[in-house]
């Protein structure tokens, strides 16, 4: 199972590629809306990409309370933990 550092690396790379963000601007603390200018429609595209990584369906519920990059990493980590069980 991937550890959180690996997940963060993947999430940050995905974000920078999808939305043409500077990789260096993305930290665990980055707020998706305020810092990275990601809106609710971008979030849908992001979830589509993360599905490929997690390897299973992601329901919007799993990402409902996500505000920061760290929240995404935790959500992805939880989903992968569920997967391997």
């Amino acid at each position, binding site marked *: 199972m991937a550890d959180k550092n690996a997940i963060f690396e993947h999430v940050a790379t995905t974000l920078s590629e999808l939305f043409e963000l500077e990789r260096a601007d993305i930290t665990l603390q980055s707020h998706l809306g305020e810092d990275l200018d990601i*809106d609710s*429609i971008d979030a849908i595209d992001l979830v589509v990409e993360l599905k490929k990584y997690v390897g299973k369906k992601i329901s919007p519920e799993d990402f409902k309370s996500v505000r920061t990059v760290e929240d995404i990493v935790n959500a992805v980590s939880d989903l992968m933990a569920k997967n391997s069980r």
Partner: protein
Amino acid sequence: MITRRINYCWRLFATALSFAIFGIGGVLIPLLAAPWITLTSTTPTHRQVRARLFIHRTFRAYIHLMRALGVLTWEIKGEALLHRPGLLVLANHPCLIDVVFLIAFIPNPDCIVKGRLLANPAMRGYLRLTGFLRNDSGAELIEGARASLAAGSALIIFPEGTRTLPGEPLRFQRGAANVALRTHTPVTPVTILCQPITLTKKHRWYHIPPRKLHMTLRVGADIPVATYDHQPPALAARQLTQDLQDYFTEELRVNDKPIYG
């Protein structure tokens, strides 16, 4: 001097009257019209189309009433462009009554409205009857917009999401561009001038302008969006949003006066 003072007092009174009529009418008119429209329509879609034609005529009557009362005047260039089916109409949003004017000139309007507008008793009846889209979410909104455009409505969106802050540059959100790109619909731009500026987020209804309000609406040529398709959608939405923002900013800069002076 005295005539100016009288004119000001009359406009203040007439503005109060206009607001009162809009508020009371907003409660009573849908209440009275809903049973008739519902009973005489064959399908839910038919009911919606008739409800939208009805709100179009009501708002048209309302702006004529305000003009008769001496509250405001208006002019519009390219009105016929708004009578085509399946349009995505994007407009800047200088003041409170922009949407009243757009609906007054569009026979089959659909709008994306704030969910909390349902809490406003003067709007609730109209919203129920017309089934206007609520802007609560991302994915559902795009699908709702797609269905609305396919059904032939003219979908009105204010890309700013809220009224312009006076003196500030335009700042567009990306929802409108996303709708255009993901439904492959060209943009029909309408630039709106409200002069002298009034009814912004900072004005109360009684802060009336020093002279009679004049609304200018310019319907521009359609802006095609197919040229953005070579990029991933998230990036295309950013590019189109920027281009639209530049377009409206330039239009407002160049045309910062009424059409017929």
